[in-house]
């Protein structure tokens, strides 16, 4: 059982989606996260073990390498895709309540802004680390965030912006949510955003990289 979990973790870390995928070149023709996860479930490996000892391990390794500038966007994206392929097999078990996730994360790119690569990376890293992710997409209004906050009372909210012109909308959205739910945790990220800006607009957490967001959520989940 350990062997197959290690293999899945390796596929996630290096972005091997499935047998047919040519990426990465040195794993051509091998089974990917897709086939291996199916196999693991069929042979009775518990869903939580696959999540904890394969997906989370793989995503954490690539997240740390990204933070240390050893890998870049394409590798992280391929890792996220491999993780997504594995997650497809796990989802029915979460939906049925047979397996539990660590929490819920509501994420979106703020009003006026269409940039989604950074938001997608965070979204996929968080999902691969065992959270349910509600991805609201791009150009998301304060009203939409508020409605989702109502629907998921324990959901942590993540706001993304890539432009100096749209980061001002973060302030508006944080205020809208905090006016109604003062205790709701909101984290922010994006190229123009900083820790100082985070404090200024009364958000709770800023991370310059996706792994930081995952670690923050893990701390919250650990209580």
């Amino acid at each position: 059982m350990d062997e197959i979990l290690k293999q899945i973790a390796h596929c996630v870390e290096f972005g091997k989606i499935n047998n047919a995928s040519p990426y990465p070149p040195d794993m051509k023709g091998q089974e990917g996260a897709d086939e291996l996860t199916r196999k693991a479930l069929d042979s009775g490996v518990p869903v939580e073990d696959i999540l904890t000892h394969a997906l989370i391990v793989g995503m954490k390794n690539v997240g740390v390498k990204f933070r240390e500038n050893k890998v870049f966007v394409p590798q992280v994206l391929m890792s996220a895709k491999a993780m997504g392929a594995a997650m497809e097999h796990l989802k029915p078990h979460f939906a049925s309540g047979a397996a539990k996730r660590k929490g819920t994360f509501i994420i979106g790119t703020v009003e006026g802004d269409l940039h989604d690569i950074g938001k997608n990376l965070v979204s996929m890293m968080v999902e691969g680390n065992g959270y349910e992710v509600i991805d609201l997409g791009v150009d998301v209004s304060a009203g939409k965030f508020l409605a989702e906050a109502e629907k998921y009372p324990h959901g942590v909210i993540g706001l993304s912006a890539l432009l100096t012109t749209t980061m001002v909308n973060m302030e508006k959205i944080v205020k809208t949510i905090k006016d109604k739910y003062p205790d709701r945790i909101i984290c922010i990220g994006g190229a123009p955003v900083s820790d100082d800006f985070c404090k200024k607009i009364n958000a709770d957490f800023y991370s310059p990289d996706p792994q930081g967001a995952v670690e923050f959520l893990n701390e919250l989940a650990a209580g």
Partner: protein
Amino acid sequence: MPRLKILSKEVSLTEKVPRGAMLLDILRTAGHEMYTPCGGQGTCGKCRVYVRDRGYVTSCLFPVMEDMEIVLPEPSEASIMAEQYAHTRQLPADPGPSARLSAHPYGVAVDLGTTSLVFHFVNLMTGALVETRAILNPQAKYGADVISRINYCVLNPQGARILQQEIINTVNAELLRFAGNAGTGKTDVVRICFTGNTTMLHILLGVDPGPIAYVPFTPAFTEEKILRAADLDLECHPGGEVKILPSLSAYIGSDIVAGIASLKPSTAHKNYLFLDLGTNGEMALCTPDRIYCCSSAAGPAFEGANIEHGMGAAEGAIMSYDGPGRFRIIGDTRPTGICGSGLIDLVAWLLAGGRISGDGYMAGDFIIATAAESATGQAICLTPKDVREVQLAKSAVASGINILLSHAGLSADQIDALYLAGGFGNYIRPANAASIGLIPRELCARAMPAGNTSGTGALLSLRSVSFDGILEEILSRMKNLELSDHPDFVMQFAMNMEFHT
């Protein structure tokens, strides 16, 4: 025998010449130095002179059959013309009715760039280019890129007005300086044509550029605007015509529309690509029926921003790189940093030597010039993070080109020419640009610098009202592709960040 009257700044003479003799030969015989890089073969267009009542003619192809008056270029124009490009469109001088506002009418073509402003002063009687000036955009203190300028306008109640005043003051200072130097009255300037990106044109008119930065990117105007100089308090003839050339969209301004219109590619070039690499990379794929264009946030990496020792193409910049100790510096002083063309060369060299891997990983800083060699007393180096910035910038451009190609249903080898607009295009080495994946490999040998096409477009508009028809025709064929909501863009952008070694 026809009589020929030759007018130039110093002399005016009339002489009889043999009927049918080539004008170029007559001018040379009369002792006028003529610049003919093509050797009088009629292909380069650099020996043009102005024939009264006929407009510009290419003198090596023009037999003199009757009496005529020739106006020779002023010396300052000659040197600028020598730098002009073979594929620039030529139009007969016809500045329109505003030229009648003065007995000695002048006009100014202004290219409003985010970073610099270029002024072309023109004698509207002859169409002669009298002076060209490039100065820094005074708004630079409010931010380097259009987004930060827009941000200023959004956050400050009088923002757009404040930035407008900065531009107007600078244009006025140039107008007064010109009038002083040329010994003309300020009211002799009777026509001004502006090109620029959509944001700069909004600011010029004091119109809020805010909507340009937000979805769905709808600018307040894109159409041509014609005003009177008094409307903008410009220091010239109050009734003079001020023309703002038309734009296509929020991120395809009149700088690009007029830039494309300023080119007249060889008829052998059916499909060609126009690339203007600045903070925003604008690109257009011109085909016989449609012109597909898009703008992609290339980021200011090639202009030096976000690069540890990056700088613009100014004195002290390493502008080319061929290996340790083998680099060229602008101004041949000690190096202070590296500019876009040098950066492309350097990354291409490091990739070829395996110091940067195909996925963009570089183990540590690479020293370009030691502390002892540099002008700053500090080593000039390339950091692993700089390589990441180059990956982002080159992918934004490469992905934009790919999406244009797929919309046009063309492959890179079906593109006959690549025009590189802007100063960057003069320095860039196409082979290295292809090595790092900025442009398709197939286009290396077909790349050529096109100069400041936006400024040339403004100049053509100033000199000749017939340019309007060309602009209109170009605009009617242009199709704007918005990359940020394009389904293929995100995946393309991410995967094109890799280097293919």
